[in-house]
């Protein structure tokens, strides 16, 4: 077992952080459709990262 984070999972978490941040930011700018797109984008990215992390942790 190696204590090193998986690169794909890290990339997905990073993408999720950026997408969620931009989604909340877009809500303030009044563009709800854009905000919704990025919030869902962030949620899907986090779900994919979580899925992969569970797979690797179960090995």
């Amino acid at each position, binding site marked *: *077992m*190696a*204590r*090193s*984070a*998986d690169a794909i*999972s*890290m990339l*997905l*978490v990073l993408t*999720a*952080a950026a997408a*969620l*941040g931009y*989604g*909340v*930011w877009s*809500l*303030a700018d*009044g563009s*709800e459709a854009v905000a919704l*797109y990025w*919030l*869902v*984008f*962030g*949620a*899907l*990215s*986090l*779900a*994919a*990262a*979580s*899925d*992969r*992390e*569970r*797979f*690797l*942790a179960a*090995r």
Partner: protein
Amino acid sequence: MARLAAALAAFALLSGPWVARRRLSLGRSIGVLGFVGLSAAAWVALESELRAPRLDAVRAALGAVAWGLFALGWGGFPGRTHLPEDDPHALLAARLPPRDRLSVGLGLAFSALLVTALALPLLAWRVERAGVALLAHAAALAGSVALLSVGSRVLLTAKAVARGAAPRLWLWLFVFWFGAGVFVWLS
């Protein structure tokens, strides 16, 4: 209606501790659930009178302090902590050293994750419209908790080298959503 609910709420607040002396669970139900429920009924009956511009600042501040005291009033101080080492059957030995240490890079990555999770709810304060602001705060809070939960697991738990096919459902949905976004943007 609001006055009646408020009076009943005050009655529940005062009678709850008195009933709790003999029947603890009933007293707590009256004092906590009854008081909060009747207070909520009073707020609903007040309708537009509860809007921020109509509220008196001093009364609002006193109300906030009173709710804090109410929460503390029904709590209790924890009993004396029992240390496991005090048990006569405890096997005393030297502390076990950690099996592994986090690298500096992972420490920095976790700090960045923590800062991002804290910054998301702060970003929501940019939203000024009433209904959308509530959505922004809810989305930011949920995103912050999810980010911290998944991110800390990704960064800090020990991993094995990937063998075999990893689950790809969410990854495909993510790629599909990204592709749909690019398609809409280009068209």
